[in-house]
């Protein structure tokens, strides 16, 4: 599903965020990317969705080298990937339903079917009663779950999450972790950048340190 082949990422003026990273993630696998803050976890996820481009090596997603993708091809890559961002990036002038609807509007999904899917996604993260609520009216945990609903509403084969349990209390974090595990159980490949690895027992772990992958 994902293959990194000697990937490096250098930001100007010469800061190496990642250097010589190689690994593979199989389909239906659940993998944690862990490491200290600034180890390059977020950068690694951004390379997969081509939010950033590698400065060396190849990033293959579904057999496609995404670091060489033309700008016009990026949207079609991102539609196949569900992303949960570290800062969630919810739209605060739209209610929960509309936030989750956005990816489906983008792909031009038929409206009635889209509405059903949005409700199903909200239901899966336990927010079906809050669909009219604006994000500011939601608690931190609810906002995180809303971000997850938006990431999965397009039913992607690949789900990327950047620190999805940060800033959450222990119970809520466990709840969010459970949702990811459920998606993995139904066949979604899940890649999570986190330093709360103990929330996901049994998942393979990629350990990053100063931009290098530890063996």
């Amino acid at each position, binding site marked *: 599903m994902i293959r990194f082949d000697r990937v490096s990422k250098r930001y100007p003026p010469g800061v190496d965020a990642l250097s010589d990273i190689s690994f593979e993630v199989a389909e239906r696998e659940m993998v944690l990317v862990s490491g200290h803050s600034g180890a390059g976890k977020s950068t690694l996820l951004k390379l997969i*969705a081509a*939010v950033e481009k590698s400065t060396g090596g190849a990033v293959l997603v579904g057999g496609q080298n995404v670091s060489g993708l033309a700008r*016009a091809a*990026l*949207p*079609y*890559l*991102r*539609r196949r990937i569900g*992303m949960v*961002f570290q800062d969630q*990036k919810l*739209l*605060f002038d739209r209610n929960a339903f509309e936030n989750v609807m*956005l*990816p489906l*509007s*983008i*792909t*031009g*999904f*038929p*409206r009635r079917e889209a509405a059903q899917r949005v409700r199903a996604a909200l239901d899966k993260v336990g927010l079906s009663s809050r669909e009219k609520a604006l994000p500011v009216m939601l608690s931190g945990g609810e906002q995180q779950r809303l971000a997850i609903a*938006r990431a999965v509403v397009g039913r992607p084969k690949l789900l990327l999450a950047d620190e999805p349990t940060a800033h959450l209390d222990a119970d809520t974090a466990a709840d969010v972790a459970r949702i990811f595990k459920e998606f993995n159980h139904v066949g979604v490949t899940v890649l999570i950048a986190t330093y709360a690895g103990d929330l996901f027992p049994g998942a393979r772990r990629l350990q990053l340190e100063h931009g290098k992958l530890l063996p």
Partner: protein
Amino acid sequence: MTAWLAQHGDAVRLAMRRLASAPVNSLLYLLAIGVALALPAGGQMLLANALSLAGTTSAVPHISVFMAANADRGMAAEIESRLKKRGDIKRVQFLPREETLARMKANPGLRDVIEALAANPFPDAFVLAVADERPEAMERLAVELRQLPRVEHVQLDSAWVRRLDALLQLGRTAVLVLGVLLSAGLIAISFSIIRMQVLTHRTEIEVSGLLGATDGFIRRPFLYYGLLLGLGGGIVAWLLVGAAALWLRAPLGELVRLYDLTLVLQTPGTRDSALLLAFAAGLGWLGAIISLQQHLRKS
């Protein structure tokens, strides 16, 4: 196809929602665009009215040929037959001097003056309608007619037509210049409004891009926003011009009546109105395109 339509529908709705979310701002924008457009649109309306006024007055130019006062009727008859033989003269109307005298006496103001004169002061005359009404052709013909024996004076009465024509031409140019300048102004207004919109919706633009939106999807609501701004401004301009026409109708009619003409100032016609709205919408759209090209890639 339906998906495409639905996406455009969504974009229009979003643009409307954004317009409605800041009603005071939106109204001021529309007013600014409307006033800018009302000037050339108003000029065009006045011009159209002036043209129709020029059309209703007899604009067929004539040449008047006056015989010498001492030329007798036989001379006049000879000239008449020579005029009638010419191919470049369509119609020859003979005005005998007695008839002219009688007509002038009918005017109460002139009667006393004329009766005080010893002899008939009016010569025999011809009024000619020409085949070629272009001013240069008439000028050439007049020069030839002046060579005829016993012809005292040849007068072109196309002069006022030319003056009116020149005035209308000037009006047209003024409207055009005004139109071009204020169109550029409208594009600039739309440009900066869209720029602010892009700044306001920066998060949304970013998130949409991350979720797989194409550039087209992201641009669409902004383009419709520009289009709606232009269209709304066009409607404001149309209302302003229409109101001005109705307001000016009575005083202008009064003024024109003093020149023995009638004019009922008309509001812009369907064609002009549709043109105005389409043009305004197009300019708003264009401003948005330029603005997005400048500001979207950076965000």
